[in-house]
């Protein structure tokens, strides 16, 4: 053989290898989750859902807000959020109610009261919770419920674009606005808020996030320079705020001294003790930027965690769902992001906190978990009570034309340098285009392996609508011991998926009542030992995107849980231990002060 003139056999081998690589690449492309749509029998393991919203008396449709005509070219994008749902117990009867949010001018929010048999009636108008979308005042984006005044009933803070509203529950399903006298009169363009007791003084504090900067009245703009100034590291969003409860029904702004005034474009916030030091931390999902974890230092201030694997991964965080993916007593977060074939694979993040052993937020996401499309709200929940938490993920951004898509137009502006991207007037017009529209809701079944393997079973189990999903909330609406799923869709109906799974495992649930700390026990943890597992769940206010789950903690146990032991850790520091609690029932546990 001479250089430049290889013999034919060698050349043929190299050509065959090259062709093999081409074939491999093509084949791998065919295997992608986005392509693989056919149901896979046998993977669902008895899980079944049926959509029953109308059947149970729910006929709510979300309406979107409007924006200044100066940014009409991308109004479709700006107004593509607002559908929200919270599970609450507004009438205190022990049955989960639903508060659904609309955002359109004058559109009524709905409070669906659970009659106790899994059917509902809308009582928002008489409760004073319907007429909150007032042009110039507020476009509702979500709600967070809690007993902030510790008087035994559930109050609500409704956040959105404009002046958020605090409504105090006066009993008998009557709510009154107390925003001004409570010290919460401020304008923001907010898409998230959460109640938590950051200083553990027994009174719930309120964290309200900002998305668009608060100086912009999106309905009457003075400038079109309202957008993010970077697709990856934007810091020109709305300011997040922390309001500390003074215990008398009023709040003071402690944002600066607490150090949690992030101006990233925050879409979701969840409070839990990630570093296991006994103080609730704040985990934020930010659009156009990395996630942020603010570690609570002795209830006095927060420090932005660094070197734990978050700051280097800049994506488009939409929600933070909280769970324990391994059932090993370690908190997990699922942060949704964007995936779109050919254009962008940010991938959802599934992280396990290893902070208790000075480790990182360990990233586990790949395959079906990472790529759900343009993912929004999500929640962890054990749908088949097999002892491992599954995931429900709502997807799809803007469904308009089925033929015309905005991704190409988006790709032009997304490469801009400087603050070109910040000027909405410079963006290509949306017209009637879709942007990741008509995407399917996903159900990711946790296979219970040590590597957290999930398989996507949405189609098989009947939880597979194609609306533009936003908020996902979980609750046992009919009291049958199985978690049902509620999904709020942008410009679409509120869907209720009844869990009709067969052959599910044993279960146990806990309603926690605080006495030393906040009455809702927000921040309390239940660690349940069963079989060879140890699952940790936390009582939260907000969780996911624009959503709140039923506060009751539901544990699936599998068919043979063995000896079961529960330890409740209260925000006050108290502990309650339950040995061999009865299974397949709800336990009401009251803080007893023992340590």
């Amino acid at each position, binding site marked *: 053989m001479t250089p430049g003139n290889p013999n034919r056999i060698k050349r043929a081998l190299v050509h065959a290898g090259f062709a093999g690589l*081409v074939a491999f690449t093509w084949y791998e*492309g065919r295997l992608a989750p986005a392509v693989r749509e056919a149901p896979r029998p046998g993977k669902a393991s008895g899980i079944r859902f049926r959509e029953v919203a109308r059947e149970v008396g729910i006929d709510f449709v979300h309406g979107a807000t409007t924006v200044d005509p100066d940014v009409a070219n991308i109004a479709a994008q700006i107004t593509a959020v607002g559908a929200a749902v919270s599970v609450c117990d507004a009438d205190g009867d022990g049955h989960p109610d639903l508060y659904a949010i609309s955002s359109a001018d004058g559109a009524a929010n709905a409070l669906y009261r659970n009659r106790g048999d899994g059917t509902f009636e809308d009582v928002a108008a008489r409760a004073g919770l319907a007429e909150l979308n007032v042009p110039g005042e507020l476009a509702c984006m979500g709600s967070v419920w809690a007993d902030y005044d510790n008087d035994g009933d559930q109050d609500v803070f409704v956040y959105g674009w404009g002046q958020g509203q605090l409504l105090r529950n006066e009993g008998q399903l009557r709510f009154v606005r107390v925003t001004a006298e409570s010290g919460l009169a401020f304008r923001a363009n907010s898409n998230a808020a959460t109640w938590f007791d950051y200083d553990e003084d027994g009174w719930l504090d309120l964290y309200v996030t900002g998305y668009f900067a608060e100086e912009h009245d999106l309905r009457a703009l003075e400038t079109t320079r309202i957008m993010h100034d970077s697709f990856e590291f934007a810091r020109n969003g709305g300011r997040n705020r922390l309001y500390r409860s003074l215990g008398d029904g009023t709040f003071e702004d402690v944002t600066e001294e607490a150090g949690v005034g992030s101006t990233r474009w925050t879409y979701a916030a969840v409070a839990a003790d990630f570093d296991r030091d006994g103080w609730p931390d704040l985990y934020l999902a930010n659009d156009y930027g990395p996630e942020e974890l603010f570690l609570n230092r002795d209830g006095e201030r927060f420090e932005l965690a660094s070197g734990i694997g978050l700051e280097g991964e800049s994506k488009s965080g939409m929600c933070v769902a909280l769970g324990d993916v391994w059932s090993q007593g370690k908190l997990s977060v699922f942060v949704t992001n964007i995936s779109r074939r050919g254009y962008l694979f940010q991938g959802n993040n599934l992280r396990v906190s290893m902070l208790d052993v000075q480790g990182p937020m360990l990233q586990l996401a790949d395959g079906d978990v990472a790529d759900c499309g343009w993912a929004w709200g999500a929640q962890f929940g054990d749908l088949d009570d097999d002892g491992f938490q599954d995931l429900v993920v709502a997807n799809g951004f803007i469904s308009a034309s089925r033929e015309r898509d905005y991704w190409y137009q988006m790709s032009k502006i997304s490469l801009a340098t400087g603050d070109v991207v910040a000027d909405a007037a*410079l963006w290509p017009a949306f017209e009637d285009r879709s942007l990741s529209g008509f995407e399917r809701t996903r159900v990711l079944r946790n296979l219970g392996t040590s590597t957290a393997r999930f398989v996507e079973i949405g189609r098989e189990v009947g939880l597979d609508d194609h609306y533009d999903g936003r908020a996902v909330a979980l609750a046992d609406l009919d009291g049958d011991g199985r978690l049902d799923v509620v999904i709020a869709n942008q410009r679409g109906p509120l869907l209720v998926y009844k869990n009709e799974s067969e052959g599910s495992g044993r279960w146990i649930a806990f309603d926690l009542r605080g006495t030393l700390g906040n009455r809702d026990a927000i921040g309390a943890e239940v660690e349940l030992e069963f079989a060879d597992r140890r699952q940790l769940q936390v009582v939260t206010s907000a969780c996911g995107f624009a959503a709140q789950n039923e506060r009751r903690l539901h544990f699936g146990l599998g068919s043979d849980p063995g000896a079961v032991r529960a330890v409740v850790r209260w925000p006050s520091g108290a502990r309650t231990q339950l040995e061999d609690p009865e299974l397949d029932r709800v336990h009401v546990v009251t803080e007893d002060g023992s340590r």
Partner: protein
Amino acid sequence: MTEMTTPVVVEAGASRLARWLPRPTPKNLITLLITLILVVGEWSYGIVGGYRKLGLTLGTCVLTELVLSWFLLGRMPFLQSAYITGVSLTMLVRPQAGLVWPFVVGAALSIGSKYVLRYKGNHLWNPSNLGLAALLLLAPTRVALLSHEFGNAIGANAVIWSVGILIAARARILHVSLTYAASFALLAAARSAIVGTPLLAELAPLTGPMYQLLVFFMLTDPRTTVRAKRGRVVTVASIAVVEALIRLGNDFDMAWAAPFAPAPPILALAIVGPIAMALDLRRRSVRGGQNPTV
């Protein structure tokens, strides 16, 4: 005594150092530029996205080059080309989360194309351009390219463009880079007028990292660029025209254009580059001037 001998030692040291330092040849300068982009991008915004990815891509490029050169040609290759390809792929390939194979396969396809896709003794595609185009067209459900600005800092962009222009001038390839940039700008203005999109939105892509790598490395690759200066100008302008057609096709939602939408310039180069190269090689072979190389 010490004072007397010190300069001698320094001079000898400098001389030894000079022997080890690469000379400022055009190729070395280009290598320096891509390293600068890599370092600035990583230092500022973590553009690499993990050193495993860099190691895998670079390692595969170098290994493939070594193996194929030894296996087919029986000689050790120069590895600068593999290095530039590896760095380009590292920065641009953005696969689905958790996937590793696109870096390995993309690198192997890129370098392999130099030995497989040949005409009259020359390879036709810029290696990284071929690898990127293959990944995008064959597996768009798995792979995307860096489709947004990293960090959005004008300063970092200005440094890269300034140094790039200086080095391109020194390497005598500035006419290629400038022809493309000017053609893109003119055609962006035309597209803006036709489609009604703001001009800045049409010009915006030129400032992104995908275009930096295209303008300073792929279009100017001496092995896959036509020989005559005028031919290069015509080729590069043609690439810009094909890119504009792809963009217009997508602006008007034409089905044929959709597969090219995620990376119009990369795919325009993948179409026009080899055609121009083949025509040039054919013309040169007719004149008896072909010069087979790898």
